[in-house]
Each structure stands twice: as C-alpha cells, then as structure tokens.
C-alpha cells in the first residue's frame, strides 16, 4: 500500500509530471491509420493530457499539432474536422506510421529509433491494428496485462469452444501442438509459477502451469517499457498492446495483431471489433453504465464474469472497477504480483533517472534500439524439465516457417 503522493508519482502523466516525462521519451500511439480519412484529414487526438489534432503538414508529413480546446472538454471529445482550430502557439510533434498505427513523439530532443519488434517488421498483409477506450488510468490498464495468474479466473470459460471458431480471439486456440484448449489449461491449472527477467526492452514474464503426467504449460509474455505488452494470442498470432493515456483517468489500448502464418483477415478482425465499439471515439458498447451486459445465467454456465466471450471486456471491467485511478492506499500485493513489483521498480528508477538528468539510464535509450528484435511470446506444452528449451524451439520453429523474415 502506498500513499496518494507516491501513487501520484507513478500514475499522473500530464505535462511536467514525473511519470509523464518518462512516457514522453518514447513513441506513443496517437491514432489508427484507419482514422485518417480523405486527402486532408483532421483527426482530433487527446493524448497525455493534451488536446491535439493529427493532420498532414505540407513539409513535414503527418504531425500532431495543438488544437484549441476548452478546459472542460470531455476526455474523448471528438470534434468534426471542420470545427477544429489549430493553436499556432502550441506544440507540434512528429508522427510516424507503423502497421496501422500513427505514433507520435512528444519528448525533448531527437525522436528515438523504433525497436525492430515483430509487430513492426511484419508486412502490412500480416498486421492489423485497432484501439479501444478504457475509462481508467493507464497504469492499472497496463498492470492487468502483466499479471499472468488472472487469466485462470477472470477469463475462465466453463466450456471450451471449437478452435475452428477461434480466429481473432484470445485464449480460444489449442495449447501449442496439443489438442488441449487453452481455456481448459487455464481453468484446470490456476496457480502458475511466475518468473520475471529483465530484458533490454523491459521484462520477460514466464508462467508455468504444471500439468498431469509430468507436462508443463509454458506461457511467455512480455512488458515493453514503458506501457506496452507483447503476448501470444494463438499459435500463429501475437498481440502487442500499448496502454496510452488520454489523461490521468482515461486511456486507449492500441493493439497490433501480428501473424506469423497466413495474412490477417482484416475485414473479419475489424468487423469483430466494430461490433463491440462505437465510432468515432472507439468507446466500448459494454461499459459501467450498462453493467458490461452482465448476465447471471451466463455466469452460472459459461463464463467467470458473465460479461460475454470477449476477454477484452473482462479486462475492461476489472480495471475500470478499481476506480478512475486505482486507490493504492488499499492495495496489498502478493508474491503472484512478481511482474508488477518488477515493473514498478523499473518505472520508479526511470523517473529517478530523469530527475537526475540521466536519460541514458532509461530502457531502450542506447544506440542499438533498432537492433532489438522479437520478443519471444508463445505458449508451449512440454515435459517439465525442458520447458525453457521447448519455448525457444517453438519460437524458432514458428519463425523458420514464417512467410516474412522473422528471424532473430
């Protein structure tokens, strides 16, 4: 449990805040490429406590400019392009398009290189991006993504779906090369051993579920500093997801889906997600105001939450129900929160480093950022003794068969 002052230190991200200063040193997703409509788009972007507009500059290409806004403007206010007025005195930030997402750099000095992650290396045919609004602080949104144990409860399915219907859905595939649905593994083995390692990009998180007959399910996920995760979605796809602050009490998740096998069926992926979100704000259809469409009958027979089959809604409910900014004066972390403990240490060290003008101490601040590849993110099932090797071999095998260059 920490006091409000210490909580503010790691959660508040507006201009000239300690955590905000850290996040601004990294490229931040600002908008989906899908939102750029027409030859002269004017897309409102509310990001890091600032009111901005994404537009094409004659000389600089895509940029983020400051727009005129009232102090009481709603966090997701989305004015029409014709109503947007650029503030000529405001800041301008560079923008780069990467596989469906427009990234902006809002920090000092030259923008850093992008790491050469799989999500950026994959060709457009094998990538798909989407976003969604969560009405809560970015940190609690990130921290649910680095808790490997919660999936056994929050995303528990009492019945296992046919994997043939699993396209585009998290946790609905078979576990590795077995005929065991991942939903079954998570349901029947709810107490993983969790280990965390520091990497050049953040953290590698390994959860082991020791199964019958001396077998172990190995799930490798990653925290990409400062506020992203890279996790397996299926045998052929990974998810790289950023939790981007709109302000202190609202954030967008931006997700890149990366396929290591067939081209992504973008129409299906987009249609699945547009059923659950309203445009232009990408606000979820299910939310606190309609109890996330909670159904007690479904809870009794089908899902742990009773809030439908989309695991994103389960996460949304869990993080939004903590309050706009999680009250960590009432928090009791345990040993299962190992990755959260390690992450907060990284974040606090980064904050301290910037306060001491030591930006070079931040993760991925060296000159070799563009050489960072991967990360390994997969599920594997193997004998208990060789789980580490099995995870690496599964990764190498997938990369070897990948139609685009995914070698590491």
């Amino acid at each position, binding site marked *: *449990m*920490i*006091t409000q*002052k*210490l909580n503010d230190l790691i959660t508040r991200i507006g201009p000239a805040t300690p955590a905000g200063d850290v996040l601004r040193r990294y490229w931040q997703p600002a908008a989906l490429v899908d939102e750029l409509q027409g030859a002269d788009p004017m897309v409102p972007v509310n990001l890091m406590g600032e009111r901005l507009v994404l537009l094409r500059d004659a000389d600089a290409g895509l940029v983020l400019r400051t727009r005129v806004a009232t102090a009481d403007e709603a966090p997701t206010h989305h004015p029409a392009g014709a109503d947007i007025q650029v503030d000529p005195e405001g800041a301008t930030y560079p923008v780069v398009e990467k596989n469906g997402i427009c990234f902006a750099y809002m920090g000092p000095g030259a923008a850093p290189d992008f790491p050469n992650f799989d999500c950026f290396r994959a060709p457009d045919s094998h990538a798909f991006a989407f976003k969604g609004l969560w009405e809560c602080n970015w940190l609690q949104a990130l921290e649910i993504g680095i808790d490997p144990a919660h999936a056994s409860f929050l995303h528990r399915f009492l019945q296992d779906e046919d994997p043939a219907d699993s396209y585009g859905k998290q946790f609905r595939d078979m576990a590795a090369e077995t005929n065991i649905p991942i939903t079954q593994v998570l349901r029947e083995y709810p107490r993983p051993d969790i280990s965390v390692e520091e990497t050049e990009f953040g953290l590698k998180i390994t959860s082991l579920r020791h199964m019958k007959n001396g077998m172990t399910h190995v799930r490798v996920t990653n925290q990409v500093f400062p506020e992203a995760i890279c996790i397996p979605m299926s045998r052929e796809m990974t998810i790289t997801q950023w939790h981007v602050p709109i302000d202190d009490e609202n954030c967008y998740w931006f997700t890149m889906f990366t396929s290591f096998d067939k081209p992504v069926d973008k129409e299906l992926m987009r249609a699945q997600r547009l059923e659950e979100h309203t445009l232009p704000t990408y606000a979820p259809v299910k939310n606190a105001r309609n109890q996330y469409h909670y159904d007690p009958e479904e809870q009794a027979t089908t899902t742990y939450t009773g809030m439908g089959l989309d695991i994103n809604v389960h996460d949304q409910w869990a993080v939004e129900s903590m309050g706009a900014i999680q009250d960590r*004066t*009432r*928090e*009791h*972390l*345990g*040993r299962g*929160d*190992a990755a959260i*403990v*390690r992450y*907060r*240490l990284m974040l*606090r*060290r980064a904050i*301290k480093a910037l306060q001491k003008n030591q930006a070079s101490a931040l993760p991925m601040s060296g000159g070799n950022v563009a050489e960072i590849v991967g990360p390994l993110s997969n599920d594997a099932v193997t004998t208990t003794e060789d789980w580490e090797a099995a995870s690496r071999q599964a990764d190498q095998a997938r990369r070897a068969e990948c139609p685009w260059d995914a070698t590491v």
Partner: protein
Amino acid sequence: MTALHQCQAFEDILDGYFPLAESARQMLVRQGLQVMWITLLQAPVMTLPGLGPTEPVPLHVPKIHAGLIDQITLCAALLRDGTVVLAGAGQWFWTDGRAAAQPFPTLTRLGEPAFVRGVGLVPAPSSETTTPDHLAWTLTPFEPGIAWLEDRDLGKVTLFGTGNPEDLRAPLPVPAQLPGAALQGRLMLSADRTPKFWNMVATSSVSV
C-alpha cells in the same frame, strides 16, 4: 576448527507489510542463508503508528507515515538465538517531509514487496559452532559496482555487484556493533564471474 562457507548470489522478492527485520528473516530462511547483503532500490516504505511489531497490516489503515527508499544496501544476519540483526547504509525520504537524517525506524515496513539482488553466506554444516553471536561491520564503496564489507571480527569480505554501479553504493557507511561474545577468525572470499551472477566461495578459520 575450519568451516567452509558457501557464498551464493540470488534474486528474490522481499515481502512487504512486515517490519523490515521480519521480512529479512523470512528471506534468510527461504534462501537458506546465515548472512546476506541485499540492495533495495526505489522501495516504498511505511510506519504505522500504534501497530505492534507482530501485528499484521489491517485492510484499512487509518494513518501511515510513508516514504521511499532511494537505495539502501542492507546487511542481515541470523544469529544463534534466531533473532535477526540489520545494518545498512543508503538514502531515503519521507513523504510528510520528516528529515531523512533520522535513524531508519526499526518498525519500518515495506509498502510493497521489493525485488532485491544480493549475496549470501550459506551456513557451514557445523553451524552451531560457527553461527555468530554478533557481527560488526562497515560497508565502504571501492569503485562503481564493488564494495568492501569489512567485518571486524571475521576479516575483510569483498562483495561484487551485478554490474550496475547503482546496485552497490554506500556513501554513508554505518557501523553496527552489538554486544556479545566475539568470534576469532578470518573470512576470505574469491570471486568467479559468470555471465549472470557472481559466484563466490568462502573459507573461514574459526577458533572456538
């Protein structure tokens, strides 16, 4: 009598919510160590007025004095009677503005579990004769990443850090001396570097 102490480097999570000495005792037992040196970085801490040393932290806390450890190198030893002694040096602050120069309160609890790296001594097989009654030491920085730990009774001990100069810093050496019978002897360490950890082997000659 000669006893062999094995040294080992380790990583672990120091549990929160107990007084620091109790968290350290649990870590010593969990790791199978007699003495350990660990580094705490950016760790929230708290003292709860009126809460006894063995009382658990309640779900709703009426008042906390909170702070943050910037960095502390903490030495902990498990004595023959099962008690734990602590000594350390480092920097911290309290969020209510109290002066950090005050001694670190003995009932300070971690506000969150803390990831630590450290080095420890595994007790010798004949631990009854080598478990110290007391330890007296100073911690002195030598160069970035390396510090000398000198135990006035057991001799000079060299510690190597994990390669990060921040992990071992002791700008304010704090000697800790406790009453009790002195052990005569000398403790020597040599280090073999591995890609990830520093492995060490120690020998000690102890006169009983």
